[in-house]
């Protein structure tokens, strides 16, 4: 489905004609809509997976519904996304110049089912008995990034939310123990935010880019010569 409408403008415009959903997806969506009412902001089909965007205040409730009403007993993951365009590491003229990184669009665009702002938390839950799954998304305020924690519904959300918290700086209200998971406790910054530059690439271009590296002591002028 290459004609999938994926680019959304920043607003929360309702799509007049929702994408075609399979019967199963429609049934799943109907449960969410019936239980949450206005809690469902938007929905879309992403290559066979139903994506439902939930209002932030219904985030934990949506997990409960998924678990109890939809038999989604299995938590696949909880993660975050930063929709801001990447800070390109090519501003630096001497040495930097990592032209290997793919060029992404420079304006902020949102993916399937839209977003209210820069940060979103998304999760995927599945049913081991009915064999269906649904991706849930919720918006997170960019200034005060917090979402409701799912740990009371899915204990497995614990580590996922800890990871998301350290990587995106998104807090989870109701999480028992939101320490850092991977990173050392004194680490500053949130690596998966788009404005967190990959320093290794700033300092030195990706070595795979150069076929033949100049030997040490080789006087032939390098491309970034000091002159």
């Amino acid at each position, binding site marked *: 489905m290459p004609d999938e409408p994926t680019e959304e403008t920043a607003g929360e415009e309702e799509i007049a004609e929702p994408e075609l959903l399979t019967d199963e997806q429609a049934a799943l969506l109907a449960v969410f809509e019936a239980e949450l009412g206005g809690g469902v902001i938007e929905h879309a089909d992403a*290559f066979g997976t139903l994506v439902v965007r939930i209002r932030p205040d219904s985030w934990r409730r949506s997990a409960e519904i998924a678990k109890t009403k939809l038999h989604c007993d*299995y*938590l696949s*993951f909880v*993660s975050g996304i930063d929709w801001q365009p990447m800070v390109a*590491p090519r501003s630096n003229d001497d040495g930097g110049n990592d032209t*290997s990184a793919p060029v992404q669009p420079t304006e902020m665009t949102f*993916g399937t089912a839209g977003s209210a702002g820069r940060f979103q938390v998304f999760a995927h839950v599945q049913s081991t008995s009915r064999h269906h799954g649904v991706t849930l998304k919720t918006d997170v305020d960019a200034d005060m990034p917090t979402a409701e924690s799912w740990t009371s519904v899915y204990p497995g959300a614990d580590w996922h939310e800890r990871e998301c918290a350290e990587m995106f700086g998104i807090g989870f209200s109701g999480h028992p123990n939101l320490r850092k998971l991977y990173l050392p406790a004194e680490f500053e910054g949130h690596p998966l935010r788009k404005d967190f530059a*990959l320093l290794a690439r700033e300092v030195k271009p990706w070595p795979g880019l150069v076929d033949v590296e100049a030997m040490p002591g080789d006087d032939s002028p390098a491309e970034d010569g000091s002159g």
Partner: protein
Amino acid sequence: MSSTDNPPMPEIQLEPGALRHLAEAQVNVELDTGDMILNLGPQHPATHGTLRLVVRLDGERVVSADPVIGYMHRGYEKLAEYRTYPQITTLVNRIDWLSSFANEVPFVDAAERLMCVEAPPRAQYIRTVLTELSRISTFYLFLGEMALQVGALTPAFYGFRDREYVLNLIEGATGGRFHPNFNRIGGLKDDLPWGWISETREVMKKMLDGCDEFEDLVAGNEIFQARTRSIGIVPGELGAAYGMSGSNLRASGVDWDLRRDGRPYLVYPELDFKVWTHPDGDSYARYWVRLQETRESCRMVLQLLDQMPSGPITAKVPRIIKVPAGEVWTEVENPLGQMGYYVVSKGATGPFRVKIRSASFSNVSIMPWLLRGVYVPDVITILASLYFILGDIDR
């Protein structure tokens, strides 16, 4: 002067018998031994990698266990944002390094879905064969490794020895023993070499024999059973809520295999195979299920080789791969469990965001719950039976 002197002792009037009470209190305090905190890892033979487990012990009983991960965090989700799609297959190879090929498949699948490209049937078959071979090699290591952690040295060597045959096959087909990087978007790098199929048939027979050997030597051993039965019981629902997947979940009686139940991928819908489950959910069940699955995989490979179609191995794809904007979630049944990628594309040559859902991460997140109250040797048994790869936890 007074600052260097000890403060004067306060005068205490003791009642008769008070001293004896104090002495008894002292004895009671000494009998109440404090907990010992034991650091299992980051370098410990049982964690096969750099997992650290902070275990609080009362004697040899675990009071609480807190896994500390991240010693091998390589930030693939961030790196993937700086790479083009074909380059990322090299990265994802290193997530679960024992079954690298199986890691590539869902990622390439994600890119293909977004591009609306489909690999030709022969490529799909070869992918399936290689995925199953990775599964066999991973499980073979487990079958030996688990015995090693329980204390038997010999099966580990049998596991390593026999796995070598499979790795030779993978190397023969892809050129890489551990990190094949063989998948291309829209197909494969190369076709199979001449004679590979007949050799694979031979090896699969050997592998099936090896499974019998493991069944006799390890699974049937009384001491092994005494060490693993009813150790580390995971209830099915709890396992699922923790995101435990794959053989671990099936050993808890949850009949769920993405090869059969997930969105159809590769050629699994055309295959005839059994999904093994075990009701017990203990360490022995996990061993047993993996043993059966190894057998099943061998049979599946034989089946695939019989059905292998001829034809091209790559679809038509542009030279510079630009993936249309969109989001896709792909999941597959990897040897360790559910492996998934949530790929967000904005129409560039590389993804905007890749969420890597790796199996071991969720599989071991149940450990604090699971390890409470067991003995130190059982910690090792449980760790071994959950079968995690550090690269798959830390990504």
